[in-house]
């Protein structure tokens, strides 16, 4: 095992291979506060990549309802339980979120999926994991949003669940794709070295020519985003729509384009990009890249289960209304600061949040032109001021992709077109 630095857990950790980082890394931010689980992303992916025979159970992109749901069922709870079993009572963080780029969320003192040595025998020698059953893959979203009754009371809904205005129950939608991790567990587990991480963009792929369907990757991936296909006898996974990221789609004239699941997002929760990487695995300072800004400057977007240790490149703006303990378990200790920033965004963050889904092209840089003050009020006892700033997005070629304002233009439908579509 090599010793590598994982900035998301703020320490060195064991990994089966020496660290090697791409020039640029595929990364994304999902703003959970906006997700309505319309499943447009899910269907965009399904109808592009996984509609063939043998892929019936595959959803490379999915949206699940937390805390009840999961695809495959209970994927995160099962891995958390395995880690807890391997290191009882000690899966904790120390320190505090701070300015240190090597440990922006503090330090995780527990063990990662690569470090649970006592649990790694006899079945899995490199990565702690489990193989979901067929049934766990087969019914995504089942029972997730269904109203239910109290345990043991049949034929009656739980009356507390509908009390308003105070919500005693809570849930949120978690949209997921492969995180194209910097330390992929799937890659680490493959005994055939049939999984690789592309040096140009960090996209993790299974070599369809070499895979023999052993499913060590399925067992190892803590996010369960590699999937076995029975009729070709090999495993498949999210390919990050790499032809689009490479700029091969004719729509963008050679410029990098976001994935299908991103561009189909009608809730405008998703932004995907390519970020520059240093040779040590840290992100190159790129102050006006919107992903760099949200993750490393505003720190409003956080990795999903950083304690797993794979250094995922999917980041989430955590939902404001969810109990903090649950969120800290899911996104690490940076949650409180992230929610504070998102709830009371400053001028720059508010402008950057307008960049989501105005274009299908990958944004490499943004610029803000200040506008006039348009609103002033008090929100939860705090004074807030809105300015109608303009934010301009630039592509890889340095050319402007679009510009948009904080105050969106208001169009009123003329009376004669009322009730028409």
């Amino acid at each position: 095992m090599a010793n590598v630095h994982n900035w998301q857990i703020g320490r060195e950790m064991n990994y089966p291979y020496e660290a090697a980082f791409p020039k640029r890394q595929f990364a994304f931010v999902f703003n959970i506060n906006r997700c309505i689980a319309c499943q447009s992303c899910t269907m965009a992916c399904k109808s592009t990549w996984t509609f063939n025979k043998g892929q019936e159970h595959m959803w490379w992109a999915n949206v699940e309802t937390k805390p009840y749901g999961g695809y495959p069922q209970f994927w995160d709870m099962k891995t958390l339980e395995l880690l807890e079993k391997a290191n009882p009572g000690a899966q904790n963080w120390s320190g505090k979120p701070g300015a240190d780029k090597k440990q922006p969320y503090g330090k995780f003192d527990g063990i990662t999926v690569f470090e649970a040595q006592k649990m790694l025998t006899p079945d899995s020698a490199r990565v702690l994991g489990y193989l979901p059953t067929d049934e766990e893959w087969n019914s995504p979203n089942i029972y997730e949003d269904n109203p239910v009754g109290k345990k043991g009371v049949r034929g009656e809904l739980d009356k507390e669940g509908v009390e308003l205005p105070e919500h005693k129950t809570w849930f949120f939608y978690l949209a997921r794709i492969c995180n194209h991790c910097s330390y992929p567990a799937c890659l680490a587990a493959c005994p055939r070295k049939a999984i690789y991480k592309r040096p140009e963009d960090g996209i993790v792929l299974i070599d369809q020519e070499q895979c023999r369907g052993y499913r060590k990757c399925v067992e190892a991936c803590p996010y369960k985003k590699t999937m076995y296909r029975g009729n070709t006898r090999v495993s498949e996974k999210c390919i990050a729509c790499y032809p689009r990221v490479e700029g091969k789609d004719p729509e963008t004239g050679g410029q990098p384009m976001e994935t299908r699941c991103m561009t189909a997002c009608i809730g405008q929760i998703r932004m995907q990009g390519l970020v520059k990487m240093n040779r040590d695995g840290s992100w190159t300072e790129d102050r006006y890249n919107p992903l760099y800004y949200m993750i490393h400057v505003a720190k409003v977007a956080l990795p999903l289960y950083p304690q797993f240790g794979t250094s995922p490149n999917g980041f989430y703006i955590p939902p404001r209304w969810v109990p903090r303990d649950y969120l800290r378990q899911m996104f690490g200790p940076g949650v409180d600061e992230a929610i504070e920033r998102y709830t009371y965004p400053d001028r720059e963050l508010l402008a950057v949040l307008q960049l989501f889904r105005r274009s299908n092209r990958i944004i490499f840089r943004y610029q803000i032109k200040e506008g006039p003050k348009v609103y002033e009020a008090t929100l939860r006892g705090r004074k807030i001021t809105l300015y109608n700033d303009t934010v301009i997005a630039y592509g890889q070629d340095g050319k402007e992709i679009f510009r948009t304002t904080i105050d969106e233009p208001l169009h009123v439908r003329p009376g004669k077109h009322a009730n028409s579509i």
Partner: protein
Amino acid sequence: MKPRHFIFLAAVLSASALAGCGKKEPPVSEAEVKAVFEKSLPSTVDDKVWERVPAHPAKLLLQDMVEPRLLQASTPFVRVQSVTDGRKVAFLLTWKDATLDDVPGPALFGDACAVQLPATTAADVPAPQMGEDGKTVEITYWSAIFQASVNGRKDDIHALYPRAAVDHYPFEAPSLKAGSPPQQEMAKRYAPARGAENPMAGPRTVPVQDLLADGPGTIRFAEKTVSSGSGKYSGGGWTVLLVRPLPNGAQPGGRTQVAFAVWEGSRQEVGARKMRTAWIPLSLGSAQ
């Protein structure tokens, strides 16, 4: 008799019982696998010739040397018989298996077996576990999942879940004539392993694969599969016939080494997680 010997004898007797009721039991060859010379090779697992070909009871060991390892023993031994016609060599592998595992699913693994020979017959044999750098081994791999496919089971979800409902596959649209080149092309386009000509993906005409390896973790597909075989599950066990060319340098009347492996699907054995033998001497009969 020492207890260890007693267990071994019990295993041999039990293997013999697998040959089937009413069939004549073959003689036993304990020290080596004897490939008996026959003018023509048996083409089925039920061929009468197997009644007189000596059977070697090969003890299976845990593959616990390299990761991912198997640490709980499953199949204890495999009975091996062999016939050669001077150009090819046939192996008949018989082992007990209480469960028939031949359906591919996300968490379902198939029963399988394999025969391994040094690619070149020489005094200095490769390491028994998948060979070593510069000393290639040739492996003929049989899979129950492949066998079911060859036997005619369709590769679709209904093999797994007979009552599954499928709305529509775009490549089976009425506008595309079934089996036509455009329809086949479209079906293949979204089966990347098939498009990449990965031999795992089929379409399958034989239930075996020819593989090469130069050490653990290096297994690769041979340029072409020239071996053949067939497997049959009955009486609580498998009988599998594997027929392959004699390896480079192996001559009728000569000797080489052979090794075997068995995977128990119900225990999720796959890849390196298998029961295997060490090298076993293989004597090749000749017409003389």
